[in-house]
């Protein structure tokens, strides 16, 4: 998985979407950009899922202490 953090990856994805939305890419470029975007979405989801697990566990232990 990438060393970049969630925000950085998210910004890259935003950029890719904007490029696709403009529709000015050549087909080859578009395919390349699409593949990158797809990979980014996968990574972002994984990161988010991990964070989600941790945040929930932390929250539960906190509740026990209280």
């Amino acid at each position: 998985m990438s060393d970049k953090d969630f925000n950085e990856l998210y910004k890259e994805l935003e950029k890719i979407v904007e490029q696709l939305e403009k529709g000015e890419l050549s087909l080859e470029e578009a395919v390349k950009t699409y593949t990158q975007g797809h990979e980014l979405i996968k990574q972002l989801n994984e990161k988010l899922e991990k964070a989600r697990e941790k945040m929930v566990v932390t929250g539960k232990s906190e509740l026990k202490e209280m």
Partner: protein
Amino acid sequence: MEKTLTVTELNNYVSQLLSSDDILESLKVEGEISNCTIHYSGHVYFSIKDDNCSIRCVMFDRSARNLKFKPENGIKVYVYGYLSFYEKTGQTQIIVTVMTEGGTGDLFVKFENLKKKLELEGLFSHENKKPLPYLPERIGIITSSTGAVLQDIRNTLQKRFDNYGMILYPATVQGTDAHKTIIEGIRYFNDNNNVDVIIIARGGGSVEDLWPFNEEELAYAIYASEIPVISAIGHETDFTIADFTADARAATPTAAAQMVMPEKNMLIKDIFLKRDSLNNAFSKLLRNLDDKILNIKQRPVMRRPEEYTNILGLNLDNITNRFFLASKAYIDGIYSRYNILNQKIEALNPLNVLSRGYSITTDKDGKVIKCSSMVNKDDRIITKIFEGTISSIVEKAEKNE
């Protein structure tokens, strides 16, 4: 001519004249005792003289009792008193009230000279004085092992801090070589480094008694000491060179003990007070921290931490949708452009014309026949129609009219 006087009248007059003179009223005269007799009544009759002159003196019993030395011929002295004229014999004499040995004056000059010299050398300067330890583990005391001074110091230390530590360096504190044993004491403590502070102590005494403490050699030894030195010599009014050189001067040996050792009771009291205020301050700090943590715990993000990831998740879903929509739109765009082109191309396709019943005729070489003059009778021609080809033989070729 002049009036004739009786002897009585003359002596009366001289007596009046002398007793009205301020200088003669309060004298300090320096000289050497001679012709000294001590009368059975206790009065002392003598003369004092210098190289050229002499004058009669009398010291009455009451004053003579306070003498610190026995008056003898040849002793150099200072006499204090007033001039009196004894009318009966016509003699002047000094009525002496106080008499001190003349050597004292020499010592005083010596003291002042040494003080000036050492002051110039910086032995008395405040920057060079070492601070006293706050609570010495062991105190080095240089004094006579017998006598009240040591006992006074011990009593005072005992009262203030019962488990005090002390090392005594027994010294001679009187006599011409007394300063040498004191110097040895200072060196002993510095060589062994077994005390935190040194007290040099001696009880009160005459200027001569205290003289060892004015020795130059002792001043240097005190100055060189790595361990702070307190001098406690004589009474409040006595100042010695040692007092000026020491890191601190105590008026009396007892004062030195008080200076160097805090009171245990006070220390304990102070520790308890500080402990209490520490406890108070600490629990206050803990309460504050508790409040802060509680405050933070109650913020939404801490109460429902998943909320934060939820929002991120929504954002991500949102942009993912946008991504796929944009991608699809891109592909759709390419398709629609392709379709338009395709239709245009289809419209230009000649085969489409054939489907409507038209045909193309070529000669046997595939050359399209556009004019009847291009063929002759019996030539083979090939006609291409929508579905298939027809091979024919020309029967007749004529031009349109």
